[in-house]
């Protein structure tokens, strides 16, 4: 095994802060000719990506633009993550350049920000949750060995960040949920199932479950009942 990679892997697993991971990853990907990165979960259609971002190594301006304008739902690279388990070059993410103008806009704007090439590692978590580690830089010099090493590195970093986030005493529990999550938790509190709430709100049951999961993450709770109890206790919902 590549000794540098082995020591990076070890350091990543010892690191207990996201900022420490940021420094380690910048140094590690530099060895492979990459400059920037983003690590994030991918939300369901229409949802804000910001609560899903694990770590951003992007320029602030691009991050602000990409996240606030909902580009994650237009970006062909992010969309392609749902269709493959293997890492791919951004240029291989399929989209219709003629018809899919929003996708083209995202790709062109990224290029204007100096991000025209990159390697994307899809992360499939248990239960169909989807994440991504995307590295910014040229890819044509990468051989199969380097690609596999970057794939491993991405998996370690993503897993470690999930662990750090779940255990961060400052980050969780955050006492805030969105208005939508509050609305849905109120229905949960009155005994409605996800399917019933879907019928009431016009959302899909999958989206209802996602909102509940997100509220659970924000509150640092263990299950749906616990989430409702904490939301009432902290007066985030009133019945």
């Amino acid at each position, binding site marked *: 095994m590549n000794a540098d990679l082995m020591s990076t892997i070890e350091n990543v*697993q010892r690191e207990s802060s996201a900022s420490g991971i940021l420094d380690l990853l910048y140094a590690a990907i530099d060895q492979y000719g990459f400059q920037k990165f983003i690590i994030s979960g991918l939300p369901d259609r229409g949802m804000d990506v910001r609560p899903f971002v694990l770590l951003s190594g992007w320029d602030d301006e691009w991050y602000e633009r990409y996240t606030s304008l909902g580009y994650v739902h237009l970006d062909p690279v992010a969309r392609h993550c749902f269709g493959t388990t293997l890492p791919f070059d951004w240029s291989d993410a399929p989209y219709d350049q003629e018809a899919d103008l929003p996708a083209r806009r995202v790709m062109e704007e990224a290029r204007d920000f100096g991000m025209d090439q990159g390697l994307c590692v899809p992360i499939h978590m248990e239960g169909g949750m989807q994440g991504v580690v995307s590295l910014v830089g040229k890819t044509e010099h990468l051989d199969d060995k380097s690609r596999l090493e970057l794939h491993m590195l991405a998996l370690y970093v*993503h*897993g470690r960040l999930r*662990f750090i986030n779940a*255990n961060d005493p400052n980050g969780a529990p955050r006492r805030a949920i969105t208005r939508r999550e509050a609305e849905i938790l109120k229905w949960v509190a009155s005994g409605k199932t996800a399917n019933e709430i879907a019928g009431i709100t016009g959302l899909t049951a999958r989206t209802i479950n996602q909102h509940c999961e997100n509220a659970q993450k924000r509150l640092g709770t263990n299950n*749906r009942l616990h989430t409702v109890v904490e939301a009432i206790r902290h007066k985030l919902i009133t019945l």
Partner: protein
Amino acid sequence: MRVHIVREPADRQSRDLLEHNYRLRHKVFVERQGWEALRRPDGRDVDDFDNEDATHILITDGKDVVGGSRITPLDRPNLLQTVFHGLVQEDLPADPSLGADWTRFYVRPDRREGRRRAPESAALFCSVMEYALREGFSYITFVSSIYMLEHGTAVGWRITPLGRPQSIDGKPTLAAWIEVSEDALDNVRRATGMRQALISGQGHFSAIGNSLIP
């Protein structure tokens, strides 16, 4: 749900669980994942390592087996050092008598559908670490798709590759070892929300409480 620790020679109840386990393994590993080398005409996945050295950790819901794993000692014939020896280039972290090989991890496929996290899988992760600690192992080896690096790290396990990943049937696959420690058990319990012990001292099984219901 209950966790059962089953070893040969099994009593009658455990015998039924083992049979159920072998049939499920054939469904999962041969029929769904296409591991053709394991295919058998009787629809049971049983190999040379399902012997008296093996410990089966099985999860049941009512009468049904819904998930399982097999643990074999590394100082006895095992899968890692025979079938998968090509994936191992590094030394084991300690004497083989201190390690165990974790194989045939599965959750019954219908239990995964439409759920964000299968409690069966969480129970197996917790049980395997709890069992390894109880038996005094200091590390657990495994061979799997490299996505296990993400899943294991996310529950706070320290995982070290034993060799370069290789593509097997188009899937990047590697051999690695997991450090066994009280911290590793604490971390996986916290990450999965399963606070209590799953394996009891005498009966070798225990009921799993409400913390499992998502």
